[in-house]
């Protein structure tokens, strides 16, 4: 069944003034096909999607051509008036942040109904509202009539994202563009949303352009995939082929970086994602590539390979398996040392605002009777979805908050330090790195000690004189770790330490965290929603839900034989490369 493609993109580019952000993006998409776009932050994948629908910010300009079947004009360069007849009718879009994608002062139903009436699918207000409720029902929202009457803030993230999907799908578009639609959601919710998207796409023959940084997720959703780096497509092809036998060194490196499976050791890609203005001449990946040579000074064209894919590389990889899996660093067996910290029956309740004056206050229990023991040299992972109480627990353990009931006892001379999720927000932008790292040392700081700490987290010594904004996200997280290590704590807490980081640098940070606990006999307690991170990093795991611990044990045992149904549900919700290639293959 080879008819004209639904979407044909040729030589698409996006510029910010004189700086090229996206270059030479060409691909086509057939009806009902699901095409993934993979890349790290700054790869240009979101810009590509926005450019297709003319939704770029004011300072950005698109060039090239994009033809959508049934539209008489080129999407690139078309007027806002023309594009507005395409958007919402022939092409719908779902965005990354469901929390902010809906108008907060408008009810959800009318927001969907608006899309229906705007394009004349329904003209009567009442009919449009009824259709909106039907749509929400089809998107499997419980009690759709109530959801339609709700304002966005009354719904959860997953429910809101269904509302956004409702808007995108209201007029049964031929093309659905999804930009990281589940990145902000819990894994179990992610699975529901992804199943919905693939289900509706198959049922309605809707083509999907699915943008994500999550390789395994793309593998489970899409038929074909584009890999973007530095604003260009470096590789494309059937998803199974690209992700199991990558031809481009970047794809290969990306796969190696995100492999957290047992027995593997994720390998960080050297260097950092370059800024758009600072891309190298020739091949964009040249300065981070292990195979680069003089030939790479000339930009390689994207050429078709034998198996139906394309690759832009002078030295394409042909290896059958992705890489020879590097075994994890051999660690001296770590004795579970002395008990550093004991928590008993920790409970934290928050008072709800009174509903009327002098009414008894209602309480919300964020954490209920949780106990644990942290030992020297052991790494404990706390895993759970939003609202599970995992961050509350960490705050109580680290002494950042006081429990409503229960106790936290630390052994004599035990110091605690915390590394937070957001490497941008947790460093004072007006302090030099040396002052940031030396601050917890008070009088005892010496240049030598600061240099030693920076080396321990893999930062160059000259980093000391610079300011946080001069570093990338991954480097900032290293600075935060160096600062936490400065007072030689016995226990290090880390709250989602790699969630804000790109895959290619995630591995480095995990290794730093692993290294410092291994060498120094520290206790480590990591809170994360990411099961892969916990399994890679930790010895023991606690699975939390609704403020309680539902399961705990050594990581290997919990993964191989989960005892609690919720743990099992969590583990099954996470897409895993290799197990999850989309049914409709190449």
């Amino acid at each position: 069944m080879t008819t004209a493609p639904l979407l044909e993109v040729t030589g698409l580019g996006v510029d910010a003034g004189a700086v090229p952000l996206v270059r030479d993006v060409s691909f086509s998409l057939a009806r009902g096909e699901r095409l993934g776009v993979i890349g790290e932050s700054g790869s240009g994948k979101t810009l590509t999607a926005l450019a297709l629908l003319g939704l770029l910010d004011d300072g950005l300009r698109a060039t090239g051509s994009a033809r959508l079947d049934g539209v008489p004009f080129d999407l690139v360069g078309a007027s806002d008036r023309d594009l507005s007849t395409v958007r919402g009718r022939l092409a719908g879009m779902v965005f990354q942040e469901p929390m902010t994608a809906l108008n907060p002062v408008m009810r959800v139903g009318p927001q969907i109904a608006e899309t229906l009436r705007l394009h004349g699918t329904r003209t009567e207000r009442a009919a449009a509202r009824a259709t909106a409720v039907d749509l929400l029902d089809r998107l499997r929202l419980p009690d759709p009539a109530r959801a339609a009457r709700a304002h966005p803030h009354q719904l959860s993230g997953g429910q809101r994202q269904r509302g956004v999907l409702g808007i995108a799908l209201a007029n049964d578009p031929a093309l659905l563009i999804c930009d990281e639609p589940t990145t902000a959601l819990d894994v179990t919710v992610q699975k529901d949303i992804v199943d919905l998207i693939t289900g509706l796409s198959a049922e309605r023959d809707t083509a999907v352009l699915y943008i994500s940084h999550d390789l395994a997720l793309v593998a489970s959703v899409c038929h074909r995939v584009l890999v973007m780096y530095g604003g260009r497509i470096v590789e494309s092809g059937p998803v199974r082929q690209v992700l199991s036998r990558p031809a481009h060194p970047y794809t290969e490196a990306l796969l190696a970086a995100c492999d957290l499976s047992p027995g593997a050791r994720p390998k960080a890609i050297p260097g950092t994602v370059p800024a758009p203005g600072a891309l190298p001449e020739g091949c964009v990946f040249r300065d981070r590539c292990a195979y680069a040579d003089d030939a790479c000074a000339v930009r390689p064209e994207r050429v078709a390979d034998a198996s139906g894919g394309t690759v832009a590389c002078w030295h394409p990889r042909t290896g059958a398996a992705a890489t020879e899996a590097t075994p994890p660093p051999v660690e001296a067996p770590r004795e579970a040392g002395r008990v550093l910290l004991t928590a008993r029956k920790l409970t934290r309740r928050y008072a709800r605002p009174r509903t009327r004056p002098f009414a008894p206050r209602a309480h919300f229990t964020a954490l209920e009777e949780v106990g644990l023991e942290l030992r020297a040299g052991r790494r404990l992972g706390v895993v759970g979805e939003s609202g599970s109480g995992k961050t509350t627990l960490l705050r109580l353990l680290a002494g950042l908050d006081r429990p409503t009931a229960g106790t936290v006892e630390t052994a004599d001379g035990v110091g605690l330090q915390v590394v937070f999720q957001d490497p941008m927000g947790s460093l004072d932008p007006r302090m030099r790195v040396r002052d940031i790292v030396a601050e917890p040392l008070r009088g005892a700081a010496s240049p030598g000690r600061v240099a030693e700490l920076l080396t321990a987290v893999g930062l160059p010594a000259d980093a000391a004189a610079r300011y946080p904004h001069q570093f990338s996200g991954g480097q900032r997280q290293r600075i935060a770790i160096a600062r936490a290590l400065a007072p030689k704590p016995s226990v290090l807490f880390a709250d989602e330490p790699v969630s804000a980081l790109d895959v290619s640098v995630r591995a480095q940070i995990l290794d730093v965290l692993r290294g410092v606990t291994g060498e120094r006999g520290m206790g480590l307690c990591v809170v994360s929603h990411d099961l892969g991170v916990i399994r890679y990093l930790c010895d023991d795991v606690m699975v939390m839900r609704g403020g309680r611990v539902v399961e705990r044990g050594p990581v290997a045992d919990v993964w191989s034989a989960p005892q609690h149904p919720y743990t099992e549900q969590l583990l099954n919700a996470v897409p895993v490369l290799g197990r999850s290639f989309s049914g409709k293959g190449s």
Partner: protein
Amino acid sequence: MRLLLRKLASLLTSAVIASFVVFAFLAVLPGDPAEVALGTNATPDAVAALRHEFGTDRPLVTQYLDWAQGLLHGDFGTSYVTHDLIGPRITDRFGVTCWLALGGMLVAVLLALPAGVLAAAWHRKAAGALLSALSQAGIAIPAFLAGILLVYVFAVRAGALPAGGYTPLAEDPGEWARHLVLPCLSLGLVQGAVLTRYVRSAVLTVLHQDFLRTARAKGRRRRAALWRHGLPNAAVPVLTVLGLQLSTLLVGAVVVERVFVVPGLGDLLLQGVADRDLLLVQGVVIVLVVAVLVVNVVTDLLYHLLDPRLRSR
């Protein structure tokens, strides 16, 4: 409904506290009304007799309760200086000030909404920068100076409008309006300049929010998306400023009332201060305080109406 009751309760509490503060403040000020009324040559007996007549020889608590009780019935007392009832004078003047403040607000809103929205929508263009610069300049000009300039242009040169004075609405609506135009303009232009800045920044914030992109993704054109989804959201922060500005106008019309010889509340207040007519001053201040409190409550209620996130708690 419950919210309304809660707000009214807090309004009453604030009003009672305010009345107490106003009374206490004026009570401790030096200047005995009886001594002022009789002049420096009065005999102590005469002063004492007058004090008794005024009732200022009673304990302060009694005086306060007496005054406060009167207020509840709309009785502001009898002036120590002119010996007529204060209530009707305040009501007359308050009406004038209200018209001034509302007119000024109207001018400000009519000016600031389009100017602010356009300045935001065109923030990358020269026209947007020009609007910003104009509003910046407007903020720097004091209202009385704007007033004098307006009088010079429209009254002295063009002779189109009266330079001052006031005609009650009931007497001649046409003249009433003609007399209000210049004072309202001079109040409104300055407040409008300030408001423009706030509208601009509120709209700019909204312009970069995700839901506006969603609105465009569903097929709304740029301008329609801003109109239908952007402005209702931008209205929330702007409303706060509007409430504050209306309060400012109520209290701050004094200078403009002087420039245009409009018999407003501010004018009465200055007169009371000059004459040492403490009871009059007390009355005017308490009316202004209550007016500001009412404006605040109305702002709060509108806030809840505009933003559903505040409602469902």
